[in-house]
């Protein structure tokens, strides 16, 4: 049901783009207004969310430690999984963000006969997530060739490496295939596993459909619809140089792709996709486990009602004296 609603929502976006540019001639709306609005929403929204998070203080230092602490000299501490200083924390965060360290730990529970439960490695999510994020990154960087003049060397290089199979004209990009395969996998596991299906909300399927739509229309544009690349580049350059213009000859199908991208960008700050920013602020990961070495200050550390020693002794003085325990007041 949640998956279906999300699919409908994505199809509705595509339909709107088709009607707007293929039937009516609202190319200005879809080619200029919408992209600018989306980018503006993204920038403002993203910054707002980060600032909003940052406004809440971190009252306690609560890293989740995943290895040996730094204590006695002769015991080797685990600098990356249980960092005790800033360098260690940077290392830990880099591993998280670049290699998805924690997902790599994943185990899969399996019931064996009788009372046995075993925990084997469960690396599929790690592989799928890495494949998705990195191919997405590559596709993103390759797109720079539309928005820049001269085109940065990375984009050119990636374009070459990516097409190294030399299959087809224009060559098939490996990253596109990886991206689609990874997305298909992420989607399939949500539907396949009864537990995942149970926890998935519409907002878990929606970005997946959007991304599949984006990658799908992208591939179609490259290999089948064959819109005029020169015109697309002209339009993209117009957008980034704030002199928007819609050249003739841009196929309506291109606007499906563009509108889906704009939707993703605008949707980003309001959704779980903000994990991309939030992971950097997660207090269980970005703090050093140096709690006993350096005092952490809580900005709102408020006084609380305590039971003082004097009150305690008043309560128990006679019993203490009878037991021969020293007291402050006789």
């Amino acid at each position, binding site marked *: 049901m949640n998956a279906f609603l999300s699919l409908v929502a994505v199809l509705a976006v595509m339909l709107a783009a088709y009607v707007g540019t293929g039937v009516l001639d609202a190319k200005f709306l879809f080619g200029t207004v919408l992209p600018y609005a989306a980018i503006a929403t993204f920038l403002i929204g993203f910054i707002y969310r980060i600032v909003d998070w940052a406004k809440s203080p971190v009252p306690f230092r*609560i890293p989740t430690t995943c290895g040996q*602490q730094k204590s006695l000299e002769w015991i080797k501490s685990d600098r990356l999984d249980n960092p005790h200083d800033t360098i260690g924390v940077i290392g830990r965060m880099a591993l998280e963000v670049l290699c998805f360290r924690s997902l790599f730990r994943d185990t899969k529970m399996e019931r064996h006969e009788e009372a*046995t439960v075993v925990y084997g490695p469960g690396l599929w999510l790690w592989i799928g997530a890495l494949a998705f994020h990195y191919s997405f990154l590559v596709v993103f960087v390759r797109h720079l060739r539309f928005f820049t003049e001269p085109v940065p060397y990375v984009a050119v290089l990636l374009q070459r490496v990516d097409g190294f199979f030399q299959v087809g004209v224009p060559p098939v990009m490996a990253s596109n295939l990886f991206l689609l395969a990874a997305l298909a996998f992420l989607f399939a596991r949500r539907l396949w596993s009864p537990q995942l299906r149970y926890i998935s909300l519409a907002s878990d399927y929606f970005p997946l459909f959007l991304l599949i739509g984006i990658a799908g229309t992208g591939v179609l544009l490259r290999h089948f619809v064959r819109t005029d690349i020169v015109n697309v580049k002209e339009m993209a350059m117009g957008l980034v140089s704030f002199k928007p213009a819609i050249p003739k000859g841009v196929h309506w199908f291109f606007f499906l792709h563009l509108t889906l991208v704009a939707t993703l960008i605008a949707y980003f700050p309001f959704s779980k996709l903000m994990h991309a920013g939030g992971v950097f602020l997660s207090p269980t990961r970005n703090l050093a*486990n140096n709690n006993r070495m350096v005092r952490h200050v809580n900005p709102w550390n408020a006084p609380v009602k305590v039971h003082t020693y004097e009150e305690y002794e008043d309560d128990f003085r006679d019993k203490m004296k009878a037991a021969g325990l020293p007291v402050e007041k006789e």
Partner: protein
Amino acid sequence: MAGAHKFDQVEYYKPEDLLALDYRPPETGWMDTPVDFRPGTWIYPGKPKHLEYLDLANPRQWAPTDENWKLPENWKEIVLAGIKERLEKYRSFKIFMDICVRCGACADKCHFYIGGGDPKNMPVLRAELLRSVYRNDFTTAGKILGRLAGGRELTVPVIKEWFYYFFQCTECRRCSVFCPYGIDTAEITMMARELLNLLGLNVNWVIEPVANCFKTGNHLGIQPHGLKDTLTFFADDIEEVTGIRVDIPMNKKGADFLFVTPSGDFLADPGTYTCMGYMMLFHELGLNYTWSTYASEGGNFGLFTSHEMIKRLNSKIYAEARRLGVKWIMGGECGHMWRVLHQYMDTMNGPADFLEVPTSPITGTRFEHARSTKMIHIVEFTADLIKHGKLKLDPSQNDLLKVTFHDSCNPARAMGILEEPRYVLRNVCNHFNEMPENTIREKTFCCGGGAGLGTDENMEMRLRGGLPRGNAVRHVQQRHGVNRLTAMCAIDRATLTTVCDYWAPGVKVAGIHELVANALVMKGQKERTINLRLEPINEVEEQPICEVEE
């Protein structure tokens, strides 16, 4: 099930019934599946007198099975205002509410889910119980789209569900290890329990110890003279085993260090043997230390109530160290106690600038890693002693024991004291085997009874939550003949005893310093023939002491 036994007795539950596990979620969506308060899976509410004593909200007589929970009139406002306040005070809470992608990596990591199969015990869904309300009332998408955006209105049934499931989380942080963003469901549970407390919803197994601790200085409510009697009993037993009379310094001004341990060690076997172990070690080394009756609790059930309550109870430790004029503080073997001492104490009640950096009077080692809090773990202290060859140990005195080690949740995942206990154990016994890799160290499984859940009326959940740990113990029992599970935690020593009796019968539980003391060769001792449990330390005749096969 059934028979002559009641739901708070182990015998009531047959393993084959508990193991008839079905991980398939129900037909109805989780927002539409009401909570079922079946006996054995929830805990009695806090008694009004304790709430009154602690100035907590809404003291009254009630039961979770009642239709009417007697909530305050404006309960909804209270909860929503409580959420808002906490979002502003804790970045952790806000981030964890916002960034979960429901990838499910944490789903099969919770011992309650593994042993119970209830989908709301998947950490992600436990968090969603609160997150859905957050989305509905605090996010733009939720305010507009409601249920479509995963939002859900806050109603009385939702509060009931919170009470049930947030008291089915032991705040063990295992899920947090596996989450790609480190989302810590324990932190979310802590927030949820604070919110529940605003309405007077808490459990007696937590609130009674809290009230006791506030008044008497320890969870068990042992009064000063009672503590003295207890320690004197221990000294008698030690004398019987070793022929040596250890001294018991209490509330002593000018001692080098204050020693604080969980009060569980005073009351019940097998924790008591560990406590005797501390006393023997300190006596043998001739240390100038002191116990305190005012700060006679290292544990802190405030951790299972609210941040404010942590601070109220924890304040005694530094206050007493200052009053007695000690130089530094040492803590005994306890799990959640060390979460508080390591991650909260200095921030809440520090700075401890009136103390000195802990330094071992025997080896001269300065414990630089505790230079701010001024508090070290006894196992750190003992590991240092052994490394410097300052203890005379005869590990063969533990030869009847085939030992394994259970990493307690908090020392493992909120501190990282993993090697010290292993080093000590390898030096005090000859037979040591690890449990499977995915069940130890940072991936260790909870005993199933932490965070105030270790009470008998919650027996079904304790046995279910104990299944993963019990399984791993049984594995090494069958493979290596393990008959002793060691743990540095007072709650473990109580709850794992039940878990082992049930899932790995024949394995007994012990603290590290019980084994240290049994191996310790003391100056002027008589020949050791029995251990602290008053059991022979060598095999009598041919009979093995424990059946390995089942």
